[in-house]
């Protein structure tokens, strides 16, 4: 879904090195634009999920039943809200060769579940061999009844979600516009400064 740009990595590098104040200013503006989306997403988080009262985090320690590293995460709205955040850092290059410069994140485990549950098989896994085959469908429907359906931020199936994706969808690209404006502003200011003083003295 992200907008693909070119030359921004170098621009950021140059700004950080030669005009850190402009870089800071730019990040401040970008952060403000992204916080709007994050706030909206956090506002969507409900204190509990209808019909899943046993999923609610009551503070007791939960152990994994299947001897994995950790147990299935409990639903805790505060943790979910905390996990909804943004990043202004550059990621590692993915296998297709792309680097993400600005991203919105849903970090918590329970938040990720709310975001994506039922995206692949809403009515449960057809290959399920569980004794309670409808559990998956019941879980998804309960989440759906609390959070509503998926919002799409791209063409792919993995571009759908209930929290952050919905917030991005509602934002209607305003955050992106603000990011580009901030970058543009910082770049222009940097050029203006360098043309007067020379690159070495831009800071």
């Amino acid at each position, binding site marked *: *879904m*992200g*907008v693909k*740009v070119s030359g*921004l990595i170098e621009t950021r590098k140059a700004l950080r090195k030669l005009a850190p104040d402009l870089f800071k200013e730019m990040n401040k503006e970008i952060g403000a634009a992204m916080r709007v989306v994050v706030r909206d997403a956090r506002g969507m988080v409900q204190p509990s999920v209808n019909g899943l009262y046993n999923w609610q985090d009551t503070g007791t320690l939960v152990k994994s039943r299947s001897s994995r590293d950790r147990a299935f995460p409990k639903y805790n709205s505060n943790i979910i809200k905390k996990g909804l955040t943004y990043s202004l850092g550059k990621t590692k290059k993915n296998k297709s*060769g792309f680097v*993400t*410069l600005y991203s919105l994140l849903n970090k918590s485990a329970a938040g990720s579940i709310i975001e994506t549950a039922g995206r692949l098989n809403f009515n449960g896994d057809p290959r399920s061999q569980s004794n309670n085959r409808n559990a998956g469908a019941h879980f998804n429907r309960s989440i759906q009844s609390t959070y509503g359906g998926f919002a799409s931020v791209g063409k792919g199936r993995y571009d759908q979600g209930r929290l*952050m994706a919905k917030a991005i969808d509602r934002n209607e690209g305003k955050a992106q516009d603000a990011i580009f404006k901030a970058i543009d502003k910082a770049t222009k200011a940097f050029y203006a400064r360098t043309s007067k003083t020379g690159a070495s003295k831009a800071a």
Partner: protein
Amino acid sequence: MTITYDIVTEYKGKGTKDAEKSLLSLDGTAKKLAKTITKTFAAYQIIKFGKSAATAFAQDQASAASLANTLKNLNAQLSIPAAESAIAQLQQMTAVVDDELRPAFAQLFRILGSVSEASTTLGLATEISRGTGESLATVVDAITKAYAGNTRGLLALNTGLTKAEINSGDMQMIMEKLNSMFAGSNAAYLDTYAGKMQALSVTTSDAMEKIGAGIFDALSILAGSTDIEVIQQKVTNFANSIVTFITTIAKFIRMTYDSTIKPLLDGLSKVYDFLQKIGVIKKDMGTVSWGNVYGDPAAQAAAAADKKLAAQRLAQEKKLQAEQNKTAAAKLKAERDAQKIKKAGTLFDIDQIQIVAALQGKISNEEKLRLQLQFALLVGNASEADRLSNELAKSQLATTDLAKAIAQLPAALNPFASYPQWIQDAINEINKLKSAQSSAMVYTPTPSTVTPSTPVATVSPSVSTAALAASAAIANPQTSLAGYSAYRAGERATVNVTVQGNVISNKDLADTIRMQLLDSSASGSFTMSNRATRGD
């Protein structure tokens, strides 16, 4: 798991390029390795090819024998050469290998029983195969089944024949239709690159079979046996022997290199390095000179001159580059200016656009002429402008004449001119009637009486003569009454009621009167009746 939504991403191709570079390097290494392997195993490859050729020949022979056996079983032993010839021709024409054609031919021959028919049908089958994209075996299977009465396969081929046509079972008609539909598919396919490659492949395969036949004959002589398995075993053994021989030679060369050549080369390398160190040999192999140049002032001066010249050349190049850049910038500026001028010029085109748009609308001839003239003036078409101005002048003159003619037209007759007079007359008449009515209202007429008589009762709603006589007080009573009588004449009617017969009660009387009044009304006399229009 963190769900990430990328807002801004950038493609960083560096890593990809690195990977590409590594891949290219790997490719180079692989090619080198391939070369080495090719060299090492060339002999083995030749033997392998020989073996493949012999195998191909053996397979060809086997399929030919199978076909011959089929024909023999069907008492068509004499047709074997004709069948082989037909298959060879078909292979040439269709680029389908004979190993595929033979089983198909045998299958068709079994159902058709004729070499010529089988070869013709096989030819058609290859065309259908190319046209539909199905394999030859599938097509031949469908055709043979259709000949046997099972048309399902033919239907499944989706040849374009209708179900009714296929189910008719008329194979001659079906084959004719298929022929008309798919004729030329082979030729078209062979005209493509893929077709040519296929033809080449078939030719190669054929050549391989022929080589195989030669090798087989040769090996038969060498092995002293015509049994192909024995020959194959001997060929394999021979190849293994050759591989062992080559490996031994390679080992010998390596040993010789390690023990003799390598120490010699190392020694020479050391001597070369030593000579370089002491300055006998310059490091640049392109200008090897014997002798020490470092202490020679002339050589130093020459080197300094070279350096100066190089610096001058560099400066000149830089200057030239700067000039070129300047020219390029000027050119770019000129282009931009030209674009700006063009953009400005388009503003004027708006006038033209407006005129053209106006010409599209519903306008009179004169307006059209004006617009066309304006357009001609805008685009600077003098001749057209002259012609249009003349036409416009004519048109204007014609319009002016028309206006004059209209001005001189006599006043048109008003068809409604007499209407006020008529209305006035009508009002007068109404007033007269009113006055007559008011006069009549003074007189109270004697109620009408119905005097039943035998045999007819006369009901007279009219004013009796006696009553009229009593209206002496009315001014001009005769005229008024006469007029009024005339005016209401249409409303009066004489109703004849026969008391006898069916009129025996009041109701009968009333009904009879009503019916009579209705009859009178129907015959033209006006009758007041509440139900007159419904007739009941």
